[in-house]
């Protein structure tokens, strides 16, 4: 026998009316949701308060599971270290020796760089100010946007449009901040466009996420595609948000209009991430500092 339908409640007027009311409410609800959606499309940050409130609520749970996950990862990592320890040790010793000379060279270059900057009256110290240190505790894994939740928020001085980096390189930027959590737009989000340059020759390019963990790099000069597999890309500091020279990505594949790159920093492997002040203020200061001597010269 076919199951009795709940849509035919019999002769009870009350049941009939309440069923009808349910349908009316359902349709009205769909229209109401469509209106809310229109509002949030027009103003994407309009409902940020609700969202960050929800993130605050679940943050303790996320923190707990995240620390559990990290301790498991640590244990496996420690155990891995014991396998072929001797050969690894030898290889590392060799590499350290090879890099010692380069390190001295780099220090000399840094010193020279400082002197040159002092000559140009650029205050090179404290270019990158850290705002807060936190860890990424969860990410939108069911959604095609690449957003992670950070464990520090407005109480720690974290505000929207601040860049976030890990020990290995750039991770993203803050888009919303709640009292104790913040949402980070990761590099692989399609909406995150970042001015970058290729390391040895400073070839300028624009990077934007492709949503699947890789980053599309497009050179600013169209028509040439000089990228090679293995090239290192760093941020250029243009645009005034991300500080320059933060390790960014490594080219993994050449495409017709540029290249695909993999981010150097793995957001979910970095133990801690650093929230920095946006580069803008420093960039503006540097710009005005660079302009004043020129105008002086013009005056002379």
């Amino acid at each position, binding site marked *: 026998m076919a199951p009795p339908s*709940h849509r035919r409640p019999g002769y009870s007027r009350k049941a009939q009316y309440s069923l009808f009311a349910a349908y009316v409410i*359902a349709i009205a609800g769909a229209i109401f949701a469509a209106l809310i959606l229109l509002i949030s499309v027009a103003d994407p940050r309009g409902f940020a308060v609700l969202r960050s409130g929800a993130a605050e609520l679940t943050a303790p749970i996320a923190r707990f599971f995240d620390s559990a996950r990290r301790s498991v990862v640590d244990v496996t990592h420690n155990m891995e270290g014991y396998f072929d320890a001797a050969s690894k040790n030898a290889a590392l010793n060799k590499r350290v020796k090879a890099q010692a000379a380069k390190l001295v060279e780099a220090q000399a270059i840094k010193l020279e760089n400082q002197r040159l900057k002092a000559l140009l009256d650029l205050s090179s110290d404290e270019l990158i100010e850290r705002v807060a240190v936190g860890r990424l505790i969860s990410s939108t894994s069911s959604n095609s946007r690449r957003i992670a939740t950070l464990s520090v928020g407005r109480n720690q001085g974290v505000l929207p449009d601040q860049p976030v980096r890990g020990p290995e390189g750039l991770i993203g930027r803050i888009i919303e901040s709640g009292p104790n959590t913040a949402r980070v737009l990761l590099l692989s989000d399609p909406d995150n466009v970042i001015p970058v340059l290729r390391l040895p020759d400073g070839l300028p390019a624009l990077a934007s996420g492709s949503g699947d963990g890789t980053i599309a790099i497009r050179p600013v000069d169209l028509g040439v595609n000089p990228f090679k597999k293995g090239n290192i890309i760093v941020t250029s500091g243009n645009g005034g948000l991300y500080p320059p020279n933060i390790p960014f990505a490594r080219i993994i594949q050449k495409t017709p209009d540029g290249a695909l790159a993999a981010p150097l920093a793995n957001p979910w492997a970095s133990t801690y991430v650093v929230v920095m002040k946006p580069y803008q203020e420093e960039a503006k200061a540097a710009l005005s500092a660079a302009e004043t001597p020129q105008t002086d010269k013009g005056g002379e």
Partner: protein
Amino acid sequence: MKQVIATAKKIVASREYESRIERYQSPLRMRAVPFLTIMAASMLTALPFFTEGPLLPPMGLMMLLAWRLMRPGLLPVWAGLPLGLFDDLFSGQPFGSAGLLWSLAMVAIELIDMRAAWRDHGRDWAIASLLLVAALCAGVGIQALVERAPSLWMIMPQIIASILLYPLVVRACAIFDRWRLAT
């Protein structure tokens, strides 16, 4: 405190081996469990799953579809709106998108139920798969209104995962249902 623990034990324990005389269902549990499980499923995104692309199936929507298809008439037709808006808080979609899509899904199942007298597990699975694919694609479409959205190929793994995981969610739902109705 002791009383609280005792009542909590009473609610949680299935009491399978106790006397069945003079036992009553808890009406609160009977009504609240579907809503609470769907909300909990929506909140799964708060757990530290880090994926390079969208991979975690929309657990909240799957739970909603499972409850709706398994127990027609249990969830009111308008349940898609509040539960969807709650899901929006955690999913990262523009606010209101799940509210709209889930409401439409509930109405769609209602329309299907008007035509089909018989449904079995296979047909439920087919209906749920259809709605999941539609909802995921529409979700990307809604995102495209706000910012640059990735191509539809990007959500292919998520679509496949959610279709294949649906029977598991139904099974979980059935366990909750048994517990919900237990005296």
